[in-house]
């Protein structure tokens, strides 16, 4: 291995008093050599992002480096003063962030912001800077560099913004690039492109990359070496091959086992009777415009037809903006579809009046994405779960008692009913949300990205619970997700949506095994660490 560009030696970072633990990082030692990609993996709260900020010396005021050294090109960054640090930042170590929209100044053009790198660290003339900026934008393969340089951040797509961020970070050929979850906010196809771009540029420029992620798929895709973190400590490090295929530490094993394999389990027998039939549903939005002029018309859902057999799980898969969430909300009538029918138990749900929907709503219930936003923070857990039955006429005492029984069903302690939502973890909140939906004993459950806000190990637990409940209660489920690996785990049937229309649907094994539509193929090819996911599957068996 070549010489280390950066090495952390027993680095500890102290959190302010009142935090959930005394140290953000304890005793962290690692090193990165030039021309390698080191992935730092961990769940939320593992301290991985704090490490990135510590290296840049951009920690929040109350957070202090307690001891240890950070050697960058032979110099200890812990001891560097602010002027020295400023020289290192940008020129020696550059950084890209998770959310390219907020990481760029909304009021200045892309070219201006990239050019600033040169004006800070070099004495180049404006003309030279402009030429360099255009070359950089071409380097990161932005379609029209001239146009992009003049654009403001909001005028670019998420992927293009992240490309611009990368161009900015690599402007001065830094020795080290820190990438803090750079693809987490992106769609899967865009993520694949950005990962490839980072890999290509890294190889060409021989940059060292510290890549922070929570996703083992991404690790498998890009890492040379891997560091696994838990609660601010490194629990395991080694080459990508070692860690992915022969993990030693139990936590690493647990994390890897929780990664959903890409292959769908063998199909279950499906009922021939459909409980829900969606036929030619459309929903169009009109935004902006004044007196009908300049209005933008977006067809969120176009002429969509799907069937849900009794007791089955239908996955609706798509990237952001594909219309999957709008469709889900049409099905539960949070949104009124423009046309089409949604037949549940022989009744056309789409034609019911608001009042009738209110009365019939117990047949079809919804589980939401965000475990923090989906529970009213001012109500106790038991009350939240009992709300539905109370609305539909169950006496309060009975409803609360039943709510406690439901807690057991979803794997929570019945005594937890007296606590407020903020006292629960994300996974527990999602269980409360599930209990709330089940309290009305629905036949159909619509789950809108129910696990995408959760850490991977918690994700696996919630998915297992859902599959278990489906069996025990005879539920039929519509499962909305952007993550094909998750869909493969739980769905019997899968429908792939793009731009408001279903491009392919069928049995999960069929769609994942022999995708017909090119978009489905592209989606499957884009899954990070696809190789690993398939191998991992066979290893599990």
């Amino acid at each position: 291995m070549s010489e280390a560009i950066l090495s952390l030696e027993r680095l500890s970072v102290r959190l302010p008093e009142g935090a959930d633990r005394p140290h953000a990082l304890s005793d962290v030692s690692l090193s990165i050599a030039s021309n390698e990609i080191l992935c730092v993996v961990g769940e939320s709260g593992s301290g991985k992002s704090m490490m990135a900020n510590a290296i840049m010396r951009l920690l929040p005021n109350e957070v202090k480096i307690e001891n240890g050294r950070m050697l960058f090109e032979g110099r200890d960054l812990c001891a560097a003063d602010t002027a020295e640090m400023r020289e290192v930042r940008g020129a020696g170590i550059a950084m890209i962030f998770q959310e390219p929209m907020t990481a760029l100044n909304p009021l200045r053009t892309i070219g201006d912001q990239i050019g600033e790198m040169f004006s800070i660290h070099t004495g180049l003339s404006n003309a030279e800077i402009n030429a360099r900026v255009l070359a950089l934008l071409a380097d990161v393969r932005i379609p029209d560099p001239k146009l992009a340089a003049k654009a403001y951040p909001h005028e670019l797509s998420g992927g293009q913004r992240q490309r611009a961020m990368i161009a900015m970070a690599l402007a001065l050929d830094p020795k080290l690039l820190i990438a803090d979850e750079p693809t987490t906010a992106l769609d899967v196809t865009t993520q694949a492109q950005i990962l490839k771009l980072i890999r290509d540029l890294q190889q060409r420029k021989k940059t060292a990359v510290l890549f922070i992620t929570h996703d083992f798929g991404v690790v498998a895709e890009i890492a040379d070496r891997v560091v696994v973190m838990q609660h601010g400590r490194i629990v395991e490090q080694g080459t990508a091959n070692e860690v992915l295929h022969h993990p030693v530490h139990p936590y690493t094993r647990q994390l890897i086992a929780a990664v959903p394999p890409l292959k769908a389990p063998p199909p279950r027998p499906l009922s021939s009777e459909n409980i829900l039939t969606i036929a030619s549903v459309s929903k169009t939005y009109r935004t902006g415009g004044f007196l009908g002029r300049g209005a933008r018309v977006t067809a969120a859902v176009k002429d969509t037809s799907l069937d849900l057999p009794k007791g089955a799980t239908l996955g609706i898969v798509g990237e952001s903006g594909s219309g999957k969430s709008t469709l889900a909300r049409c099905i539960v009538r949070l949104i009124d579809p423009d046309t089409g029918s949604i037949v549940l138990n022989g009744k056309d749900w789409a034609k019911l009046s608001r009042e009738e929907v209110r009365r019939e709503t117990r047949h079809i219930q919804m589980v939401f994405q965000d475990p923090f936003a989906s529970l009213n923070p001012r109500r106790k857990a038991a009350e939240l779960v009992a709300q539905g039955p109370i609305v539909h006429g169950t006496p309060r005492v009975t409803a609360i008692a039943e709510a406690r029984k439901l807690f057991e069903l979803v794997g929570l302690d019945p005594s937890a009913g007296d606590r407020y939502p903020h006292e629960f973890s994300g996974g527990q909140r999602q269980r409360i949300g599930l209990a709330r939906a089940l309290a009305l004993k629905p036949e159909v459950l619509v789950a809108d990205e129910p696990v995408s806000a959760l850490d991977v190990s918690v994700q696996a637990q919630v998915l297992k619970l859902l599959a278990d409940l489906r069996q025990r209660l005879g539920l039929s489920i519509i499962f909305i997700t952007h993550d094909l690996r998750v869909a493969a785990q739980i769905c019997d049937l899968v429908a792939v949506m793009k731009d408001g229309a279903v491009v392919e649907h069928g049995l999960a094994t069929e769609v994942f095994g022999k995708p017909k539509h090119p978009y489905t193929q592209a989606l499957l090819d884009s899954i990070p660490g696809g190789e690993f996911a398939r191998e991992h599957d066979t290893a599990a068996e």
Partner: protein
Amino acid sequence: MDALKRYFRSPAAVIGLILLLVVIAMAVSAGFLYTRDPLSLAGRPLIWPFSNPRFLLGTDNSGRDIAAQIFYGARISLLIGGVATAIAILIGILVGAFAGYYGGWVDNVLMRITEAFQTLPNFVLLLVLVAVFGSTLTTVTIAVGVVSWPAPARLTRAEFLSLRNREFVQAGRTLGMRDIKIILGEILPNALPPVIVYASVVMAVAILLESALAFLRLSDPNVASWGNLIGLGRDVLRVQWYVSAIPGIAILVTVLAVSLVGQGLNDALNPRLKSR
């Protein structure tokens, strides 16, 4: 309880609370300490403060006890400030809640009206209202309340707009709740804290508005109001400036107290914002 603890941890908030309690104590004790009508003749006119132990704060141009007027004035300021604020917040919540929850044409109509109220300078509208309905304590209080509701309405509307698409509200709808139950039971409790905090701003402005009106001699002349006294002192400003100065300090302290309490409440109820 946490919020209470956080409130008392801030010195500014505690000072504000103490000042406010002092003003309230003045209002309450006025009747016991000064049994005579504060607007009745008490002694020689224009006695300087601290020169006569009978009139600690001196007398005004018509020989009325300034200290008595300050104590009774506290009643008027708190009464007008409190009631006008209650009126403004109530109208504001009602308008804001409906506009924010229903959106569409309801929102359009209500916001047009709000905009009209905001486009017309509030003090000019106050003048119009006083010109039309006269200057009694009741009309002035209602008028101050009526010109102050647009800002709380906008705030409530903004809260409702952001909350109505929150997933827990959608969950309420999928459970089959009625709109009124969602508005009152789900959204309002979450929208209320910032509005309550804003009430302190409304109250501060209401006290200032009334005192300005009184200074211009357009408020009720038959009650002891701080603004009235300042207006009266204007005639003798060049020499006996204290007649205007003393009630001005009373207004300043009261408004300051209300603002500090409001800020303290804000920091206590939204701890996240304070932490940076």
